[in-house]
């Protein structure tokens, strides 16, 4: 039961996976809790509730963010993408398909966050963002190859206690290849 508007609550409109949702929220409510408790979008997981594990990662205007450190009221006017919005209907996104095919998980609890991070990693890399292990960071150098070392570094904000990292790296690499192939097809 959500509280009525008051000095400690507001009615806000969130844009989630392209759909607008108007809801009253307690000002203390995080984006994570708004998704899970108010909108029944429970694919986004709570692992630590303090920005240390990455399980609650979503995309905010296309960039990854931990939704536990974001107040719901501050997410108004921004495009929120959650794991529920990643697939195209019944067709899995290549990142999702790669996680499934290569067993890039075990218990699955960190998986939505891993997948949202992986989506952002592919974008960040394509845009030429360096990571801590990128050796040539000159702007004109262009994107460094997305090596396993680069993927490990870029995916390190998402903890996996089951220790599925090896197959997570493989899954991200496969999705990156699929993306390159697709782009080449488009160019051709």
């Amino acid at each position, binding site marked *: *039961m*959500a*509280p009525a508007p008051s000095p400690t609550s507001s009615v806000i409109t969130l844009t989630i996976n392209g759909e607008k949702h108007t809801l009253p929220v*307690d000002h*203390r*409510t995080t984006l994570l*809790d708004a998704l*899970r*408790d108010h909108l*029944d*979008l*429970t*694919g986004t*997981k*709570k*692992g*630590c*509730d*303090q920005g*240390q*594990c990455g*399980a609650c990662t979503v995309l905010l205007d296309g960039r990854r963010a931990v939704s536990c450190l974001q107040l719901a009221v501050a997410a108004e006017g921004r495009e929120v993408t*959650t*794991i*529920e919005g*990643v*697939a195209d209907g019944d067709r*899995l996104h290549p990142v*999702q*398909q790669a*996680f*499934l*095919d290569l*067993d890039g*998980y*075990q*218990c*699955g*609890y*960190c*998986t*939505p966050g891993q*997948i949202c991070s992986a989506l952002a990693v592919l974008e960040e890399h394509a845009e030429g963002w360096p990571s801590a292990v990128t050796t040539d960071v000159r702007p004109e150098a262009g994107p460094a190859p997305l090596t*396993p070392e680069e993927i*490990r*570094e870029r*995916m*390190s904000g*998402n*903890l*996996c*206690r*089951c*220790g*599925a*990292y*090896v*197959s*997570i*790296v493989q899954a991200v690499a496969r999705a990156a290849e699929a993306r390159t192939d697709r782009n080449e097809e488009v160019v051709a």
Partner: protein
Amino acid sequence: MTTTTGIPAATGALGTARTRVEGRDKVTGAARYAGDIPLPELAHGWLVLSTVARGRVRSVESDAVLAMPGVLAVLHHQNAPRINLDYVGMVGRPDPVIGVFQQDRVPFRGWPVALVVAERPEQAREAAEQLVVHYDQEPHDVTFYAGHPGAYTPEDSPFGRAEETKGDVEAELAASAFVVDAEYTTPEEHHNPMEPHAATAHWDDGRLEVLDSNQGSTWVATELAQIFSLDPGSVRVRSEHVGGGFGSKGVRPTQVAAAMAATVLQRPVRVVMTRRQMFSAIGYRSPTAQRVRLGADASGKLRALDHRSECLTSTVHEFIERSASVGRVLYDAPAHHTSDRVVRLDVPTPTFMRGPGEAPGSFALECALDELAEKSGIDPIELRVRNEPDRGPISGLPFSSRNLVACMEEGSRRFGWADRDPRPGLRREGRWLLGTGMAAASFHSGVGPSTAAVTAEANGTFTVRINAADIGTGARTAIALVAADALGVDPERVRVVMADSDLGPAMFAGGSMGTRSWAWAVSMAVGELRERLALGGDIPPEGITARSDTSEAIGALAQKERHSFGAQFAEVAVDVTSGEVRVRRMLGIFAAGRIVNPLTARNQLVGGMIWGISMALHEEAIRDRASGGHVGPDLAGYHFAANADVPLVEADWVDDPDPDDPVGIKGVGEVGIVGAAAAIANAVWHATGVRHRHLPIRPDRVLSAGTNVPEHRPGA
């Protein structure tokens, strides 16, 4: 539609890589975990944990928070319903931490003293944080160290004997050509499954229903019935998806507090632990202080093996980390002594954590073997081969199968061990010193009684019903493969219904026993079903169901030494300027029974090895002597391996079906962590020439220990 009953021969589903049955739900966010399931009128409970390490609760000032918006109740020892803790469950007597709000005594910091229930989680949380609890504080002792005067030898239990002795250790050591005598320590370690403990309880038509995150719903339902003095049939516990457990997800304060609050309020109540609460209320791995003495003759054959370990427990419950037991399986010697002792401190009770006993025990023993290899000049693999026992060193029982040598040989070949120069401190790449190390591994292969039902449906499909839990192991998929193989049908035609206590009693997911126990029950039920289907005739609309109970068959199992084995190999790089240790690659070769699903089994074994990396280099919970609590009990203060810490880790196996198991399974859940930390520590010695006997091998320890590198390196 009806189908005739003839079924074809086995399909070979077993042993073929198969993606997870629930994989699509997991990658789309559709999989609902215990805290994800909406219920009308759901109220939220927030645990309040003690802020003193020893004393009594003088008062709980609940009036102020009861006046806060949305707050429905504050449960504490003065108003909570009485419950029963006088029973023996699947893992023995209950840890009193689950008997919430029954007494004013506080035996450790982080003991549950109250539950605040409110309409919204934010309200419950704020009220819980505002709740004033007054204590009569008493002096506490939380400091664990080797040789603590309070240490005692515990009574033997079904989980193991505290002490085993044969021969004269002192005499054999005195007569040995080579002697190793070293002390090792491992720190307090925490499970930290990614999904926090969560339980939602409600009453439905006279039954207590619990949507839970656990490793076994039979386990939890049976104990909840005892705790609340209910008929076992009036408790139903379900755990469709579980976000990891690693030993921590049995009966915990979450289920008991949620059920208690749901009973008091007569509405659904959810209790979810915070990450910080998990550091004191779900168990953990005790720190250990171990001493290993090995004596060997000139050929490297052991004359004496003496492994003594100390661990801690709480003042209210005894749990023993049986680190010394690993030597009772791995090596024989004419004089053989192994003992586990324990000291009671004002700390939470530890519990089973992945590889209980073997994980810390193998660190000490397998490092000591490496030290013996160094002293005797014998290759570490050859030393282990020379000490292979024919029978259980203490039990005298035959091994069901023991393919440790095969693991070491295959691992040696694939890792490139033959080219290794055994001398330490010789390999350098810039600021990095490089080294390799290996260790042996074993973990007990057990099995627990289970029931299952398999139905041949009229539409030609099959339904398996068993109260198994999939905590990330791939159990749901493995059960489908076992059933499909036994039925001789494509796995697509098999549906698995599980994780529901109404399905009947079954083993929990723990001790590397889950898949073996469930597969046994499923294959037995399929055998019965096939006999009935062989009679021919049409399948009626309700299908034909066969049931199994493995209790008798398991009871009749011949006494043998049954274990999974493995050989772990690691290459490390040690930065001599920062003290950082990086694992460059790991290889584990295992003899772990029949592998049901290579895709998920490999992932699980690799996961265990990654736990070994964490254990060797990262994990360490620090307890503050003054407050009795932890320093930084969260995922920033307690680091376990992140993606960037993990290099290429490979796991593979040799053929090793258990001849006495109907499916040939042994278990893969734990053997992956055993020996892994030792292999890394041995590699650090090989890199630096310095032994690190205290985990984790932190940069400060590496820097202060320095290196023992020859001054004139080849090519220097």
